[in-house]
């Protein structure tokens, strides 16, 4: 019974982590940007979906769709307003750009967080779930929403895989993550690849945010922890490696769930952080890191 509970609960939360971290890993892999406004973009999507339901009185599907659209818009805005001007600036030395982008996305995230708190308070919001009720899985009363979350996460990750491996544009993205210079030599505009990646990232952030909003709910306080969790999963998996991030998401998700059930929910995040520290010592490039 306990075994099944941990298995089912851990799977749902891990799938959500996987989706959240995939986009984060993709952006780093392709453009070398560590986007520290990640959590803020997710929360923006959740609050938009919530506000659509409560202020505009639309149904759960339309609300969720609006949340994803806002995630996409916020991601593109982050790219065009924050990241791209710094990337193309001639006033900043090339080797310092990474730090500038890191700081800028962090501050951008704080700005979004404060705006959300100002207009929508810092109280937590939940998105109206698309599916309700519970089903019995191996004797465990499981909220249908948990199953829905896991299924949607894997559908989206599957579509992403097809996109990257089976389409021309996707292959360009993959190539750019391996060798940006080589891609430009093939006549592919690197900035087009970046826009495509930020758009994909925006959709992933939107979907992950809305699902999280249905599952647990978030507040403006969640911005920091969400960024931190994506960041540690990606570091654990190996910076820039999407498949590493997927594996790491399940390692972290199950480690947390095991801790919550077998030790105490109060210590849920500690073992994962200890593991991260251990990986830093033993294998600094992460589980599947290429560099």
């Amino acid at each position: 019974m306990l075994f099944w509970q941990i298995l089912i609960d851990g799977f749902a939360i891990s799938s959500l982590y996987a989706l959240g971290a995939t986009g984060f890993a993709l952006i780093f892999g392709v453009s070398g940007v560590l986007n520290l406004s990640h959590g803020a973009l997710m929360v923006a999507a959740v609050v938009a979906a919530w506000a659509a339901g409560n202020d505009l009185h639309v149904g759960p599907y339309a609300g969720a769709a609006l949340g994803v659209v806002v995630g996409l818009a916020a991601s593109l805005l982050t790219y065009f307003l924050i990241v791209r001007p710094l990337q193309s600036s001639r006033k900043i030395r090339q080797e310092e750009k990474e730090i500038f982008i890191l700081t800028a996305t962090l501050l951008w995230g704080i700005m979004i967080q404060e705006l959300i708190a100002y207009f929508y308070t810092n109280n937590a919001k939940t998105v109206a779930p698309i599916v309700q009720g519970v089903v019995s899985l191996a004797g465990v009363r499981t909220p249908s929403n948990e199953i829905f979350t896991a299924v949607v996460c894997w559908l989206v990750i599957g579509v992403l895989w097809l996109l990257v491996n089976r389409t021309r544009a996707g292959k360009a993205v993959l190539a750019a993550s391996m060798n940006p210079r080589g891609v430009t030599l093939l006549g592919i505009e690197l900035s087009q690849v970046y826009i495509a990646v930020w758009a994909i990232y925006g959709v992933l952030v939107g979907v992950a945010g809305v699902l999280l909003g249905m599952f647990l709910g978030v507040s403006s306080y969640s911005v920091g922890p969400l960024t931190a969790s994506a960041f540690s999963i990606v570091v654990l998996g190996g910076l820039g490696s999407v498949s590493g991030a997927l594996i790491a998401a399940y390692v972290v998700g199950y480690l947390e769930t095991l801790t919550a059930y077998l030790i105490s929910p109060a210590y849920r995040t500690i073992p994962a952080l200890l593991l991260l520290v251990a990986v830093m010592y033993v294998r600094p490039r992460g589980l599947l890191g290429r560099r």
Partner: protein
Amino acid sequence: MKRPDGRVVITPTLLALSATLSATVALTLATPASAQSTDPIKIGVIAEAQAVAGASIPQAAQLAADEINAKGGVNGRKIEIVSYDNHSSAAESVRAFQRAANEDHVNAVIASYISEVVLALEPWTGRLKTVMVTPGAASDVITQNIAKDYDNLKYTFHGYLTSTSLAEQVCSAAQDLLVKDLHMKTAVVMSEDAAWTTPLDAEYVKCLPQIGLKVLDHIRVSPDFTPIYNKIEGEKPDVMITGISHVGVQPTVQWKQQEVPIPMLGISSQATNSSFWNDTNGAVEGVLYQGVSGPDVAVTPKTLPFVSAFKQKYGNFPSYCGYTAYDEVYYIADAISRAGSTDSDKLVDAMEKTDYVGTIGRVQFKGKDSPNPHALKVGPDTITGLMLQWQDGKQVNLWPAGVANGKLKFPKFIKVGSAD
């Protein structure tokens, strides 16, 4: 440009950033200038303006000040509210308090609904000799500190119920609603891990057995409730007695999503907010929570006029600390009037003699010799509190019977009495 060790470069940046952000503000300990008799009386309001509960504090205080000023003020002096947003941070609250006392020369401060914040401010009330009343913090430690160091900390007043009083009210309500009416026998105490719940839980564990509810377990919780609910369900209690405030949304939503078949009754601070139904998309249906006020509940003749004036001015209902902040401006003004002075020591003397019927009951403070000096007196003659339940998007009062406006009703997934 990518670096093999992208994460290594972060550390100095973040360090530099946090160093900038945490740059300390130098203090100037100036003596407050003595106010002229025609100058306005200034009341500082330090509150969590971005939180639903905290946002009502400055609004309600302003409403009270406007009303008093419209009637001519206090001995001819107007009341001026000076607001500070503390962003729910103790450090920012302390800076705001210093500024209020030293720069803005306020005569009294109304501060915060977070116990940790009020505990951080408490020593400053003595250092800066400035009267402070909290409209919403609950920890008993606030008033226990006054007992230990009265001369220094006598400037602090607890304008909301202490955790112990809250637990006592929950027990009284549970005795009528759960033990007498539903014949419940067992309970699990489930509280969030925070300063205010330590005395709350201690009192729960003491008073629940006295009313006939055996405490099967006592759980301090964190944001993830799924494992907790599974554990509690295994223990088969009749009811979960709650102590949740800051984490309000998650336990409520998970309770509904998992369809945990055990009712919840106790403190759920965010459930007192009229917006909580929307924030949880209705997951709060059936939750029982203690309150000092509720829509359409005429606790005193002043309650409903306050609610309608607040609604008219701000477009929403006041949070629980809106009621107390509103009353606090009135009884601070009353104390200044009786003291005939804004001198802090004279004001403390006058505040201690407060006997004021406000929106949540009759306000009197416990005396210097009590283990909790300056805590509100509670009971049938002063403040009884209420036990409300969310039903179909509305907050319905069930207890005490004299002011009840509805009957207990649970959602379908709750199985009353099936546990034993």
